[in-house]
């Protein structure tokens, strides 16, 4: 096949030469070019022949090896020449083979998590005075439990669309659509549109799936002010500026069913966000990312549960500004041996509206800093400190869920992580949690495994 093409090309060149009714001064460089091309072809063929010779040599070696098998060596310690030869002789699959019916199936990846939890205080009674909490933001139940299991199906839909579905099963087997979105892949000008159900791009941690968090749980401000992470049904637009400095702008419009919104206020369009991300390299070893985000949510008779005080109702606005900074370091940029990740975020929120029918208007703040250091391949340690400060509620709401009872919520967390590979992770996390009237000591062990084709992770 190749030879035929080459022959044709040589003929073509010969024809060109033959029909050279061109002036001599123009023809000369042509001849040089043709000579060069012939030389290139020759080089090409010699390379191929050399490769073939090498293969023949390998095949001969393989034949020799199989005819005189060597005594068994311990374990899989040895690369038998046989195996090498087999590898060497492997050919790319024949392109003419009919594609199986499942060839266009989406990539399927699975995440499994399991916990063991011990704590000095009963987790089912865990509160955070000063904050009405969304569902599933508290600690897991004591002892062994299955945490969320996720199945993700993702694929390109057509040349201009990508789609991803993530179904999460909780420990009781109840399934929920965690994310289901379509995203453009071929818009001009650095634009990307996304629609469906997805995690908002605000903050740094919000967009990350649980299996990709640095610690087992989210830091206090995410738990208290975004219900762990804010995801909802809506649309997103992102624009990446054509600058050498990474500069990305984004905005979203959501339905407003998820905490801190609720019940699809404003006719099912109660949440708007805006964010800007920037970042770059300091040198080969270190890089950074910074973000500023704003999210406005509206709730219409949002229900939250407090273990002591029962159901609370909130109607009104919650606005949140988040400033985020991330720094990553690895010697020479090679993160395999050692690497460090530092991040911190500051949350400034306002709530205004009616809480259980009583007027509420206050500012809340929260922040965390965390660092994870991989000190040798597969082993990491981490530290995190987080704090919340709920604003005053006034006499009407004194004693309600929103009364912080003088508690300034604080939590200090230490982490030890061992990775059996990129896809298997075992974490032991200790938290001294001072977010309730009495401090809680909690020890959480978790495994997280991912299998199936798993997408690359965000920075």
């Amino acid at each position, binding site marked *: 096949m190749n030879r035929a093409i080459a022959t044709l090309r040589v003929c073509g060149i010969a024809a060109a030469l033959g029909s050279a009714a061109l002036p001599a001064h123009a023809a000369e460089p042509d001849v040089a070019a043709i000579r060069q091309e012939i030389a290139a072809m020759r080089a090409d063929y010699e390379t191929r022949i050399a490769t073939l010779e090498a293969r023949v040599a390998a095949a001969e070696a393989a034949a020799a090896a199989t005819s005189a098998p060597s005594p068994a060596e311990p374990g899989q310690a040895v690369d038998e020449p046989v195996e090498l030869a087999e590898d060497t002789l492997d050919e790319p699959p024949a392109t003419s083979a009919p594609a199986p019916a499942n060839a266009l199936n989406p990539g399927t990846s699975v995440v499994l998590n399991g916990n063991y939890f011990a704590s000095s205080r009963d987790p089912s009674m865990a509160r955070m005075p000063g904050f009405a909490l969304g569902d599933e933001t508290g600690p897991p139940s004591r002892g062994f439990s299955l945490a969320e299991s996720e199945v993700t199906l993702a694929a390109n839909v057509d040349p201009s669309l990508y789609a991803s579905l993530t179904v999460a099963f909780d420990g009781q087997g109840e399934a929920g659509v965690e994310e289901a979105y379509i995203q453009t892949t*071929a818009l001009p000008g*650095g634009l990307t549109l996304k629609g469906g159900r997805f995690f908002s791009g605000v903050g740094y941690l919000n967009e990350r799936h649980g299996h990709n968090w640095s610690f087992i749980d989210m830091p206090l401000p995410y738990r208290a002010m975004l219900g762990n992470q804010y995801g909802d049904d809506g649309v997103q637009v992102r624009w990446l500026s054509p*600058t050498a400095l990474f500069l990305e702008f984004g905005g979203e419009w959501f339905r407003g069913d998820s905490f801190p919104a609720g019940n699809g206020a404003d006719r099912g369009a109660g949440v708007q966000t805006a964010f800007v991300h920037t970042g770059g390299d300091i040198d080969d070893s270190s890089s950074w990312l910074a973000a500023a985000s704003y999210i406005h949510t509206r709730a219409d008779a949002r229900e939250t549960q407090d273990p002591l005080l029962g159901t609370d109702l909130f109607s009104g606005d919650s606005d949140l500004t988040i400033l985020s900074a991330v720094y990553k370091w690895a010697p020479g940029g090679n993160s395999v041996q050692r690497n460090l990740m530092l991040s911190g975020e500051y949350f400034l929120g306002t709530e205004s509206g009616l809480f259980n029918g009583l007027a509420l208007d206050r500012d809340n703040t929260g922040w965390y800093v965390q660092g994870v250091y991989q000190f040798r391949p597969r082993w990491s340690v981490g530290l995190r400190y987080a704090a919340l400060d709920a604003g005053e509620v006034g006499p009407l709401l004194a004693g309600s869920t929103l009364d912080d009872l003088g508690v300034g919520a604080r939590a200090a967390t230490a982490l030890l992580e061992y990775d059996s590979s990129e896809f298997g992770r075992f974490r032991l996390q200790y938290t001294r949690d001072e977010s309730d009237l009495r401090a809680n000591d909690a020890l959480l062990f978790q495994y997280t495994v991912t299998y199936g084709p798993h997408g690359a992770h965000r920075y």
Partner: protein
Amino acid sequence: MIRAIVLAALLALGVSTPSWALSVFACEPEWAALASEIGGPKVTTYTATTALQDPHQIQARPSLIARARAADIAVCTGSELETGWLPQILIQSANKKIAPGAPGNFEATRFVALLERPARLDRAEGDIHAGGNPHIQSDPRVMIPVGKAMAERFAQIDPANAALYRSRYAAFAVKWQAALVRWQARAAPLRGQPIAVQHKTWIYLETWLGLKRVVALEPKPGVPASSGYLAQVLGLLQKTPVKMVIRSAYEDGRSSTFVSERAHIPAVVLPYTIGGTPGAKDLYSLYDDTLTRLLEALTK
């Protein structure tokens, strides 16, 4: 004054001026060098990784996304070498010119018959690549087919300069062929020599030079060796001695050094790509330096 400030601000932001050249986002230094050979003054290259970084595992950093946004073509190895970071860069950069399937998405491994295609696709086998071993650049002969395909791809994307790309490739091929002859002659003493490798990175180098790999210092690709495994390796090396143990510049040297000291063989650091050693300054000196280091080890 104001104009100067605005200009300085624009420069600081790195606002890209209308490109007079093909902007190449090269995943690894060797492809950046090859792109320069072929594109000459008509291309500008940005290299995403250095020789001291493991190209399997880098972060999808903001700087890379910004660079990919402005690229006309991404020139990468492929065969899943960059699977841990490149897909994220491609999707976040929202640049359809370099999206998978677009002409500006160039994977060098597509133009070379890959070796070590795994018979069994299972992560129990460690870090395996379904398409075959992606570390093709350790055999300089691949630069001929890859360079040729690259020239054609440049010509397709930038037809105005097609003739230049093709003639530069032809000139490169002639020079490269001469270098190959020179290297092959220099490397003659290496033919048939038994070696140990730290990671199975070197199958193409082994094929090129006729080196015989006796053992790898990893039980499975990407799985670090335990001391028990290294003891097995040492036992094997007593029965089947090797001349040296080789590793790439980005790899940690502990297991190589351990085996080198106990088996009394030299541990050789090879540049792997341009910049891996002080001597590997460009595409030609990459292989000069590789051979120098191998030949030196042979005489030890």
